[in-house]
Structure formats: structure tokens, C-alpha cells
């Protein structure tokens, strides 16, 4: 049976001091907004957070940073966040930068029972320092290890009571791999339905990867509101 929560505070109860967590999303798209807010309220400390980005100063994972709950961040791009910069310079926050594709594959590997893999990304760069390099067919590759988490927090558009998930557009991003790489995965879904209502062939994340679900409404903040104006001629 999947745990169906009605309280976000209860949904994050497995996360404790010194937990390693994965949090889905790319920028602010596809982030489990309400689970993050609950984590801020829980005030758990010394977290290791694996996520592509670290939110912005007043939203998403930026709220955990502001509340000084993160000891270490593993991500690929953290440039949207002034508090992040301040904490790194002050030595309060450890950062492990990983190329985005390597990060995605490390998480995928973690959830797929693959301890490590070779990738060309980062060969000959500062990232290669201390890492094993191996040559295949005359080309060099770096050894990278898989990543797992105590708890993964993901966000989906639809979910059912068997834990099956469907994502919307580019809100999918890191969520499916993180769902598989968490010992416990909690999904925040926009709409929760009874099992049997979602088309089995449309499921992105089978429920086997998901332990708990909760329905919630998101703000879905937009970082760059790049709209076009309709011109008098109708535009194109």
C-alpha cells in the first residue's frame, strides 16, 4: 500500500538531520514546492541536497539555504542565488559541481543498480582531478559514481493511489530518475486519482519507485517571463 498523505509536514517526516535528499526540478520547473516548504518548517539540519539547481533567493531550495539547513549541495548550476554564493565564500556550504548530463546519469545509475560508469564529459578539465580515466577505442572517459538518496522528493502532474506518475512537459526533467534513486520517494502531485484511471501506457514513473504521495497546488513561479506581444497585424 502506498502512503497517501494529507499533510505535507507528515510527508517529509522521513527526512532527518544529516539525511541525503534528492529534489526534482530544473530551475523552478517541476520542483515539489509544498514538500520543500514543509521541509523548511521541519527545520531539519545538515542536509546533503542533490538537485540540478538550488532554487532562487526566495523560492524553492533557496528557502532551505536561507534557513541554513543545507551542509552540502550536489548540482550542475547554482548561479541564480546570492545567498548560495555568500554561504560558499563564508565556508558554510560545501558544493560539488557535476556536469548536468553526468548528474542525470549518476542519479539514473544509482536507481538502476549501477555503481559507476564512464563518460567523456569533464575529461581534461578540473573535474577530472582525482578521477580514474580510462581509454576506450582511443578516446578518454572519466569514471563517475552513481548517486542514491535517503529520501527523494519529486513532483508530477498526475499520480494514482498505486504510485504511478505522469509529468507535464519540461517539468519531467530529473524527477523520474530521482524517484528511482531514493530509498523512500515522496511524490507531490497536482492531481491524485484512484488506481485504474491513468492509462497504463502513459505512465512515466511506475509506482514501484514511489512510497508516498500527496496532492497539492503549486504556485509555479516563472523565472524568465519571455512572452511576445500580439501585433496589430496579428503577428506570427
Amino acid at each position, binding site marked *: 500500500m502506498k502512503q497517501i498523505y494529507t499533510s505535507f509536514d507528515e510527508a517529509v517526516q522521513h527526512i532527518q538531520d544529516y539525511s541525503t535528499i534528492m529534489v526534482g526540478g*530544473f*530551475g*523552478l*520547473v*517541476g520542483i515539489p514546492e509544498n514538500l520543500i516548504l514543509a521541509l523548511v518548517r521541519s527545520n531539519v539540519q545538515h542536509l546533503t541536497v542533490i538537485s*540540478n539547481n538550488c532554487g532562487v533567493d526566495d523560492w524553492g531550495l533557496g528557502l532551505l539555504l536561507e534557513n541554513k539547513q543545507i551542509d552540502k549541495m550536489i*548540482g*550542475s*548550476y*547554482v*548561479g541564480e542565488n546570492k545567498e548560495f*554564493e555568500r554561504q*560558499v*565564500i563564508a565556508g558554510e556550504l560545501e*558544493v560539488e*559541481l557535476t*556536469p*548536468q*548530463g*553526468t*548528474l*542525470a*546519469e549518476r*542519479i*539514473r545509475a544509482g536507481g538502476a543498480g549501477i555503481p559507476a560508469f564512464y*563518460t*567523456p*564529459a*569533464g*575529461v*581534461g*578539465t*578540473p*573535474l577530472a582531478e582525482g578521477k580514474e580515466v580510462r581509454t576506450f577505442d582511443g578516446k578518454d572517459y572519466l569514471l563517475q559514481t552513481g548517486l542514491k538518496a535517503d529520501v527523494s522528493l519529486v513532483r508530477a*502532474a498526475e499520480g494514482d493511489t498505486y504510485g504511478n506518475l505522469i509529468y*507535464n*512537459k*519540461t*517539468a*519531467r*526533467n*530529473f*524527477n*523520474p*530518475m530521482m524517484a528511482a534513486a531514493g530509498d523512500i520517494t515522496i511524490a507531490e502531485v497536482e492531481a491524485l486519482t484512484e488506481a485504474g484511471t491513468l492509462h497504463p501506457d502513459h505512465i*512515466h514513473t511506475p509506482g514501484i519507485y514511489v512510497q508516498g504521495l500527496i496532492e497539492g497546488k503549486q504556485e*509555479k*513561479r*516563472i*523565472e*524568465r*517571463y*519571455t*512572452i*511576445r*506581444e*500580439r501585433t496589430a497585424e496579428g*503577428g506570427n
Partner: protein
Amino acid sequence: MAVQKDKAALREQIARRAEQEMESGMYVNLGIGMPTMVANYIDPDKQVVLQSENGLIGIGRFPYEDEVDPDLINAGKEIVTEAKGASYCDSAESFAMIRGEHLDLAVLGGMEVAANGDLANWMIPGKMIKGMGGAMDIVHGSKKVVIIMDHVSKHGEPKIVQECSLPLTGTGVVDRIITDRAVIDVTETGLTLVETAPGWTIDEITEATGAPLAVAENVKEMTV
């Protein structure tokens, strides 16, 4: 001395020249910043599919206000639409298709490019490191990597050099450099000037390039 065009006009010239690298049927990744501008100039008669590493194959134009879906962004975190024939995937699959060399072309920005095709475009020592994002993967995944950038830094120093001084993004990964002054190919024997931008002579370009520059037999003026 060449006639100075304003910065916006030069960026447009570079973007229009980069568009000429695209052919119908290609799958293309455009980097964040100036490379994203190239999308504005794609010939509508070319069927080019733009891949966004956050999981969209087929980036469309910016939306009208009533079309906005906050779940639909490009890798620069700008709200976009989906193009005809688009598809979505997760981040692992997106980078699997990148590393698996299924992209025909990547157009990326650069801080420095070396004569052997080394690229530096992600960090400046002493400044806050923001992260490499997808650049280190993308430079290994495309059949052709084109770097678009200013020919010299704002201090007038060459950005095309014998050896990069900045930390690398990838080694030997660049195929072609398009700047405000020239189009230069990275070949097995070094750099070759293939096009001069309007208003620049071969001598002026050679002077502003920090590595030996061969001149192609059929060198011509850039047309955009």
C-alpha cells in the same frame, strides 16, 4: 581600422552567420545567451529541430500571454512553446542523446578557444563558480561544435589563443569559431581562416588572433 558597428548589430551578424551552419533535417542544441539568439534567424524553409537539454526536442517560439505554460521552459529557463513535431524526455535521456552523438550541431558561447580546439567557457578563477550546467556534456555529443564569441576580450586581448589560460570545458572539442571579425576552422594542423567579416582584413584578423592562423585558399568575405 574597421568601421565600428554597435554591439547589438555585431551580435546579430554573428547569429545570422551561425544560422548558415544549419541544414534541413538537423538536430541542434543552442547554448544559453548569444547562441539562443540564433533561433531568431532560422530560415523558415529549413526543417531544423532545436534540442533543449532540460528535455524538449523541438523548441518553439516565445508564447503569447494566453499560451504560457509555466511547466514549459528552455535550458535558459525562458518560457517557450513547443514546435511542430516536438517531444519531451527526462534529463537522463536528454543527455543520453547528447553523449550518444545524435545531435548534428551545437552552437555555444566561449571565453577562450585554443588552436587545438580546447574550449574554456564555464569559469573564471577568483570569481564565484556558478557551474558548468550541460556544457561539458554537449561539447562531446555533437557531430559539429561551433563556438560564437567576440574575437577579442573587452580589454582587446585575443580570445583565440595557443593554449587556454582558463579552466577547460573540454579538450579538442571545437570545430569552428564564428566571431565578429572572422570564421575560423580548427583543423588537425591548427587554425585556418575561412571567412573575414565585413570591414576586416586578413592582416587585422591575424593580428587579433593569439595563435598561428593559416589562410584558406578560398578565403572569402562573410555574407549574412
